[in-house]
């Protein structure tokens, strides 16, 4: 892929227009999506977009602008708008300048897959058709309420007044499906997904098989009375909670602005000593992997929690300079024109005690709930650490055996208790979602708010 923008020329234009320094990023993305609605392929979309953004500084006054553009003229207009903002905004006294250390980490990390990039639309539609066939052959009474298969390929470029350009080509795909089943016993729905950099046909099929099995359980699921017991939280649900509660708390920005419950706790034992949490940008073919961040700084692998002790926060260039230290290479932006904010690459939870099979965890539970699907976990509160989620599919465990499927109950507690004294161990395979990875976790004394 090629980005038809000369970033060096655009940088010079920004400086000529009055910027004392500037930081530019751009990307070109090709993507296609096929969608199923009620067992039928119904919609398809294919598009190419070029995104461009700039941050400029005039002294200590910063402006930013961005958008989707057609080519150079659009980029020049965006630059002029950023300059206009920088001229009229107020000074940021702590402004340290843009990141001066530009480069890639000296590690070969694949984030591009030729297999994904070369997957044609015809092959894409066949993959989705194959999953439809698999569902119908397994159980004709199951409906695919909705499903989508998306493939994208993009090239991202970066430059600032101190170095570059840097560039990286990447691929990604996602497969999402929602199954519904109706029987005389009732109705059930189940949503699952698979995403990654390198197309994993087996993984896609496994996702479909898991969804087929779980939607059949969801039909039989019902609310139960509340109780306090052991919670086994499925790997994808753990990844989701870590992203909502731990990721904001370890951001140096939230720490410095005193919005994080981890402010002032560096070096303290916060979690169970069994737990390590690592930020690892070098996992092959993971969506969070990168050799430089959105400020052009090389990325690095680091322990955030080591044996439960808070070892570091994550820093971008701005937050690092406030503490007189170097960025940890975690300055990532949500879009081309927004300022970076300290964010993880791939954040991985590991436990010193781990059972390979989830079944080995279930047999040890006297009374508990194995939760595989929730809604609303993103409503949990990162300022207090309060967990909230409503279970859409779980399994009641009594005497070491799964008794029955459950839905409509809420799980409530605090992440810093769940991952400290109440934490027992991890179990089963690891799963990564949007750059957060974990196995399932086993937590004791957890509140299940029932019917």
């Amino acid at each position, binding site marked *: 892929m090629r980005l038809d923008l000369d970033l060096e020329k655009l940088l010079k234009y920004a400086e000529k227009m009055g910027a004392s320094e500037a930081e530019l990023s751009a990307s070109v993305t090709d993507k296609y999506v*096929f*969608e199923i*609605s*009620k*067992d*039928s*392929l*119904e*919609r*398809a*979309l*294919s*598009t*190419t*977009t070029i995104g461009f953004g700039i941050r400029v500084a005039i002294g200590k006054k910063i*402006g*930013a*602008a*961005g*958008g*989707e*553009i057609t080519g150079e003229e659009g980029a020049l207009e*965006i630059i002029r708008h950023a300059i206009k903002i920088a001229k*009229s*905004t*107020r000074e*940021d006294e702590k402004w340290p300048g843009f990141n001066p250390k530009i480069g890639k980490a000296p590690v070969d990390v694949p984030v591009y897959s030729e297999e994904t990039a070369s997957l044609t*639309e*015809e092959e894409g539609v066949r993959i989705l*058709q194959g999953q439809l066939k698999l569902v119908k052959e397994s159980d004709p009474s199951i409906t695919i*309420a909705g499903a989508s298969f998306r493939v994208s390929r993009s090239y991202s470029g970066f430059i600032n007044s101190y170095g570059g350009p840097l560039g990286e080509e990447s691929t990604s795909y996602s497969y999402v499906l929602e199954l519904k089943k109706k029987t005389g016993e009732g*109705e*059930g*729905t189940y949503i699952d997904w698979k995403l990654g950099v390198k197309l994993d046909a087996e993984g896609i099929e496994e996702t479909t098989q898991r969804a087929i099995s779980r939607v059949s359980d*969801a039909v039989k699921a019902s609310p139960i009375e509340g109780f306090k017991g052991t919670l086994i939280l499925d790997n994808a649900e753990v990844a989701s909670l870590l992203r909502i509660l731990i990721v904001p708390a370890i951001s140096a920005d939230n720490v410095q*602005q*005193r*919005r994080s*419950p981890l402010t002032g706790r560096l070096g303290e034992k916060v979690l169970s000593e069994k737990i390590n949490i690592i930020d690892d940008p070098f996992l092959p073919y993971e969506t969070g992997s990168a050799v430089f961040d959105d400020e052009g700084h090389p990325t690095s692998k680091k322990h955030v929690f080591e044996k439960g002790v808070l070892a570091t926060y994550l820093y971008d260039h701005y937050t690092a300079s406030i503490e007189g230290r170097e960025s940890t290479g975690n300055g990532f932006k949500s*879009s081309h024109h*927004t*300022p970076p904010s300290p964010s993880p690459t791939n954040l991985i939870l590991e436990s010193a005690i781990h059972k390979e099979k989830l079944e080995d965890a279930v047999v040890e539970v006297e009374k508990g709930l194995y939760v595989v699907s929730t*809604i*609303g976990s*993103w*409503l*949990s*509160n990162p*300022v*207090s*650490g*309060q967990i*909230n*989620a*409503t279970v*859409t599919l779980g399994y009641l465990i009594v005497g070491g055996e799964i008794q029955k499927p459950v839905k409509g109950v*809420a799980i*409530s507690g605090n992440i810093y208790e769940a991952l400290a004294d109440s934490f027992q161990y991890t179990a089963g395979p690891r799963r990564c979602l949007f750059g957060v990875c974990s196995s399932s976790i086993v937590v004791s004394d957890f*509140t299940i*708010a029932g019917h």
Partner: protein
Amino acid sequence: MSDIITGLESYVEKAFRKAEELGVDFIDARIQDYRYESIVYDNDRVKSYSYTTTTGVGFRIVYKGFHGYSSTTIPTWEGIEKALLTAYRMAKALYHAGGEPSPLAEYPAIRAYSRSGYIKYPFEISDDEKIEVVKTLVSTAKEVKGVVSATARLGLQHDKRVVLNNEGTRVETDVVLTGFFVSAVARSDKGMEMAYDSKSKVSGWELVEYTDLNAMANEIGELAVKAAHATVPEAGKYRVVLHPEVVGLLVHEALGHASEGDLVASDASVIKDKLGQKIGSDLVSIVDDGRHPDGYYVPFDDEGVEKKKTTIVENGVLKGYLAGRAESQKLGIDPTGNSRVMSYQHPLLVRQTNYYILPGDHAFDELVQEAKDGIYVTGKGARGGEVDPGAGTFTFGVGVSWKIENGEITTPLRGVTLTGMILDVLRNIEALGKDLHVYTSVFGGCGKSGQLVRVGDGGPYVLVGEIIVGGR
């Protein structure tokens, strides 16, 4: 109208003729010129001041009932033709893959122009004046003892859209939205908590001028401090009085999504096949209204269908669903003007506009007295909600709330979440307040299949006889 829209539109007729030569059933185009400005003030500095723009045209081609989409930002015939042919190729790929076609219901060609009103165009206000607003919000909130951190945001949006199709429709809408937000974090020996308030309106800068910013920020600072000292309630079943902001969340999430025709048609709604059936208390009437003055302004949808007030529930009986032209054909109902896109690049989905419960006859104090013992649930600090429309379950994270003891509001509570089954809650509504409040936001909206659109929601104060509260 902007030059960009004019430039793109000049090729659309040619594109339609080309599509017809290719043998398509139908083609429509969505042209958009979107601008957004955002200022974030964080404790002691302008954290970001940014401007973003999106301009382009998206095509949908319906070929033998299958829908292919593509888009371009390039205002030349080459750019337009490439997008058109891509949409055609995608639609044909679906046709050849087999499946059930999804033809469109008939709808008359209309030509219309509709612009939201404002007094002062917000993009022309000086940068200094805009920055002063967020600075004032932050400094006032931080003056409250116990507040450790405060943030404020200003958001300005101008969204111009033109929808055209080969049946002769041309509908242009032009909407200006202004809003601001303040949040405060407070710390106590019980931990930290946050409260926030946000005000947005389809209007210009006058919204800012008519608001007492100091009072708003002071209230949020004090609320955050109270929340930080508050206790978390025991999890369990409670009688609750819901603030209209929470009612809006509840009705949007709990029923609104389930009434979206694409979910109904794909068997993913708990209220499928329930038209004409009793699904809630006699007191409950619910509408989706594209023109409520305090909501978002959707006079026409992105298919060029007029958005009228749609009755979903009347006196507890399910009366209708929301539908675009494709869902109308599937469900055998009229299009309701709810087919919307996040931007010209995106495919059409059935979305709500302004979804709210109609008011009743109770004063707020009467609702609290009738609750007797329970919780008054408010929205300042609410984090939103999520629903499984197929299973009928929902969950909401609400804001700082209050105990109701012996018919009176007493001490604050934090960490309150509401959870349950959609239809149980509608059946358990015991009384409605007499004033209607509808809210929208320039900072967020409703997310579905990766698309965020602006919506509004609300209702009166509502007394619910029983709801599950997640707490300790």
